[in-house]
């Protein structure tokens, strides 16, 4: 598309770019604030008023306090376990469900799909789910989170749509060679469906990494708290000094309380932001498939 350079056109371009820069700054500012404040000196940060774009008196004290906190480490360990095992299970089960749902010659295909889609429209609710998890003996175990959210119907539909677009000839030639459906799915289909698998890893992984609500409901034992619950205590309930107890003295902790909060937020967010650029090229496609069918 070529535009003639007119005065009106140029003005429009300038205004449009300025607007977009402004929107982007508004979006990014809170993140800059968190990053800058986390590296700031506690006293200077408390004294400072207004926007912050760079650290106020560069200081790593907050990070030292965060990394000395045992709860952060156990939280990290629990979250990594949950994200690792959970996401792997998510992708495998979702792929299996999507594969079954994308077959054309299976007798139960329609009721199977109905069983899945119906859960998008109607749920038993929070309490019955809680009681069921407790009845299964999963209460107060990380497996409650891993198993209860093993499949998301929405993601399964995205994957099914992708699988349906893969030519049958691939599968047929593998079947000729005597491959069963498991081999077809995991050796033939999955490698071809890399973009959708990457999207699934991102969607499931991020929601597992970030989710706090069901962890709060299902997990009592503090040693099993995932990172999100530790974060909740520090960031939302503001129990910084108690959490940091032992690692810093009372007065110190009060002074760096704010920067500790920000450093904690950073420690929890940076890993996701590191993975995100690598998966970005895939998930746009995933979102599109999802919204077309959803």
């Amino acid at each position: 598309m070529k535009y003639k350079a007119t005065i009106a056109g140029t003005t429009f371009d300038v205004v449009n770019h300025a607007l977009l820069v402004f929107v982007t700054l508004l979006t990014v500012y809170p993140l800059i604030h968190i990053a800058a404040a986390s590296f700031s000196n506690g006293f200077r940060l408390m004294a400072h008023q207004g926007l912050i774009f760079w650290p106020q008196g560069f200081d790593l004290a907050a990070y030292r306090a965060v990394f000395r906190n045992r709860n952060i480490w156990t939280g990290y360990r629990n979250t990594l376990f949950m994200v690792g095992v959970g996401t792997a299970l998510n992708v495998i089960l979702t792929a299996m469900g999507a594969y079954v749902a994308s077959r054309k010659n299976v007798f139960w295909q329609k009721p199977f799909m109905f069983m899945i889609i119906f859960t998008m429209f109607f749920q038993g609710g929070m309490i019955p789910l809680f009681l069921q998890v407790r009845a299964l003996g999963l209460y107060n175990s990380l497996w409650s989170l891993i198993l209860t959210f093993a499949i998301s119907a929405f993601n399964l539909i995205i994957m099914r749509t992708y699988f349906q677009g893969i030519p049958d000839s691939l599968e047929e030639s593998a079947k000729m060679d005597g491959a069963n459906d498991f081999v077809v799915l995991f050796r033939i289909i999955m490698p071809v469906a890399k973009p959708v698998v990457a999207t699934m890893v991102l969607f499931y992984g991020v929601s597992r990494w970030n989710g706090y609500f069901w962890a709060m409901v299902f997990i009592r034992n503090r040693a099993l708290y995932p990172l999100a619950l530790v974060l909740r205590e520090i960031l939302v309930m503001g129990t910084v000094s108690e959490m940091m107890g032992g690692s810093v003295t009372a007065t110190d902790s009060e002074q760096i309380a704010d920067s500790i909060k920000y450093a904690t937020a950073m420690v929890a967010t940076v890993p996701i932001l590191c993975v995100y650029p690598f998966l970005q090229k895939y998930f746009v496609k995933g979102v599109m498939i999802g919204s077309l069918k959803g």
Partner: protein
Amino acid sequence: MADITTSVPAALTRSGRVRVNLRKDFIRNKYIYLMALPVVVFYVLFHYIPMYGAIISFKQFSPAQGIMGSPWVGFQHFTDFFQSFYFWRVLRNTVVISLSNLVWGFPAPIILALLLNEVRSSTFKRTVQSLTYIPYFISVVVIAGMIIDFTQTRGVINDVVASFGGQRVNMLQRPGHFVPLYVISEIWQQVGWGTIIYLAALTSIDPGLYEAATIDGANRVHKLWHITLPSIAPTIIILLILRMGNLMTVGYEKIILLYNPGIYETADVISTFVYRRGLIDLAWSYSTAVGLFNSVANFTFLLTANWISTRMKQTSLF
């Protein structure tokens, strides 16, 4: 259902055929069945048994007696809820928050996508996109922590307000501030992500249309109004209908982190009420009844929305 009795002989022969077909299907697709098994087990355990468990909303559930053994109370919990002071409050808050979020949050990504669409430098466009997607991936806990910190009396938002001569207030203690805070933070988190689908719709517009319009002397506003918007209108309408289907759903995860008894008046929604009554006060049957009311309302909205959107898809595509 009615013709089962009238067509017994036909049904019999058909069921015979079905049995043979089933066997064949089972033999041919035995690995498919094996693959479906864990998926079915998952749905039964974590979706359908809880659905059955929702009948405790018609009982006085006690864990000792179990779901079956607990005595029936009929619609007792429902009438208790409908007659309580909370009913109107949580219903109103749910609808108000949801509608405000729709009115302000729905157009935002459309506008951003249209602005982005006018950008010719692909580097600039990509940079804006990548940066505005980021908030979508940030944990709700971090976002809530940020909101709490930014809106407190000595927080950064109040610093800015004060520098313009405004009064410092602890915004999360003010009932009147909750809905705007919720909606703004939602827009902040979702707007970039929301553009993806519109940008995809925008790229599928035939460039020839724009060229023809240019020859006819149309300027960019004309083109926006007469080509771009009508082209993405179907996408907009479908997404709008689907959003309407979720009218009774409000993200309780963020609200639970942000609200406090001082602002329940505007911040307490159905799902947060269910959570407090059920999992904190342990009024299991009562809160299941409230949750079931919400599920049924949701279901009705979603079905209606889905029905409308299927009809729309047919009429707008063919």
